[in-house]
């Protein structure tokens, strides 16, 4: 904070829309206006919103593929190393060499799924940068409606296109019911 004014710097605008339909069409217009640091906060994921915001497909799947491969290879190594090399158990008339592979499939499968599922959870937390328990948006009463029935759009002040007057006008022109300036918490 520079300390030259007595007001806190702005985090950005928060705008409430009336319906999924309204915010969807507003998002298309904000996207076309060239904003980059903005988001649409909704109680549930709106179908097609990624397109309306101009977002690309999530790349979480790549992480999960890597997780699954790690799990499968770990299980394969674990079983071969212990059963064939370290401690061959001669039971049930089953071989203790490469041809014993079919017996290893269940554990390979289970560990593939397990590590892939951990990758989903871990990947989500990393990509979304959660947990983050505090955020300037939480200070806005309007914003908090998102978890009930509010359709909220936020545009950050850090966006190069942001201006206190013009952005407000834009939000009002695309159909926002309420527009509120949110302060940065410092």
């Amino acid at each position, binding site marked *: 904070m520079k300390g030259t004014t007595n007001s806190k710097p702005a985090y950005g605008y928060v705008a409430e829309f009336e319906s999924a339909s309204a915010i969807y069409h507003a998002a298309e217009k904000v996207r076309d206006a060239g904003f980059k640091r903005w988001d649409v*906060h909704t*109680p549930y994921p709106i179908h097609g919103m990624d397109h309306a915001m101009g*977002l690309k497909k999530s790349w979480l799947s790549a992480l*999960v593929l890597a997780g699954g491969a790690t799990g499968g290879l770990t299980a394969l190594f674990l079983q071969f190393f212990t059963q064939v090399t370290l401690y061959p158990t001669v039971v049930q008339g089953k071989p203790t060499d490469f041809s014993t592979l079919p017996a290893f499939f*269940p554990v390979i499968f289970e560990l593939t799924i397990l590590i892939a599922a951990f990758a989903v959870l871990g990947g989500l937390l990393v990509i979304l940068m959660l947990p983050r*328990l505090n955020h300037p948006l939480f200070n806005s009463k309007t914003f908090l409606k998102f978890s*009930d029935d509010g359709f909220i759009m936020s545009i950050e002040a850090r966006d190069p296109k942001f201006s206190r007057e013009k952005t407000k006008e834009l939000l009002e022109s695309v159909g926002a019911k309420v527009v509120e300036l949110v302060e940065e918490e410092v």
Partner: protein
Amino acid sequence: MAKGTTDSNQTVHPSEAPGVKRESLILNNRSMSWITDRICGIVENRQPFIWWVLFVPAVLLAACLGYTLVYLVSTGVGVWGNNQPVAWGWAIVNFVFWIGIGHAGTLISAILFLTRQKWRTSVNRAAEAMTLFAVVCAGIYPGFHVGRFWMVWFLAPVPNSNEIWQNFKSPLLWDVFAVSTYFTVSVIFWYIGLIPDLATLRDRATSKVRKFLYGLFALGWRGGNRAWKHYEMGYLLLAALSTPLVLSVHSVVSFDFATSIVPGWHTTIFPPYFVAGAVFGGFAMVLTLMIPVRSLYGLQDMFTLKHIDNMAKIILLTGTIVGYAYIMELFMAYFSGSKYEGDAFYLRIVNGPYTWAYFCMFFCNVIAPQIFWFDKARRTLWLVFIVVMFVNAGMWFERFVIITTTLARDFLPGQWGYYSPTWVEWLMFAGTFGLFMSLFLLFIRFLPVIAISEVKGVLPESDAHYPDWQKLKKGRAGADA
């Protein structure tokens, strides 16, 4: 995705299209805030008296489970009725029973998600919770059945001072991996589904403690579409991972039996037969819990007769598959020409110590659900409740029949024996029900019993291209009570 983005002013919205109308999943034109209030209200308001009436005995029963486990460990597994030849008594019967019940949750969340069955949204949260609690109950049994509970860590492939490694060719070890993976993945799936709803509870919380705890577990969820994008991908991936997983778990459980050479167990039909039975028993338990819950907490508009109807249909289908498997087992015993296989079924059904159990099983699992062919029966609550109670009992008898009758009549008549449970086993089994009920009641008390964000997503106006949302909103003015 490109399809969803075309403007709908000219085209007819699917919900308005002529033809057979789909029954709506949320009745009485409820709004989003009504859904939030109703579901969060269960957590925020005082529990009804009946909650305590159920909770106190459930906790006492769960305490009995603790007592019997301490008694078992301090005395020895001889306090159970297990013997030679019936070394797998109620411990394994109840393990398979509970793990089977634990299949409905992930089936509903995963398979019905992938097949885009929107009705799952009202059911999945409670079903997943039930799954977890059932797996907890299931896990207790094999843990203590190994005899020396404090040596259970030998199941994990970690280096030890004996330099012995597990036998990865054994289905029992596969089971350890399958069940523990299933539990872990189900917890992750459940938790990821809970995050947006925990955020709702956080934003509504009035007390500091609630705000902190719900806030902590909501991880600071802000519902941004940039987050939803990854969240939906994650949820889809988990569903795709859980679908083969849920089918594998009971298959692996059935390998415990099917890979042995014991007549009556050594059959290739076991994996699909066990999976169908698990889905069957799991759905029955979901209905057993949710029929009272929906009436008690006024959830009829979200958990409608349509949901119950659909679940009854799945019970009918899987029950009939199970019936097919029972008959096919008999046919194979005859058709294979194997003397031992034939005798195993002769002793199971005609002339054995447990024939009564076989007929209990057959009636409860195959005959009783047939009433669900009738539309009316699937929508009559008391009748559905009675049938699912039969199914709960029938699925327990199925495991009892498979395990006990088979072991009691082995290859040589000189090895034949009889098994009956002791009071410790009775009390333990009752105790697992106590534990299950206590956990489920606590779940109702502290977490949203229906997935709030998902239910909102199936309302007509949730679709950004629904043409008449203004009319819907007007028609609703003042109607939400």
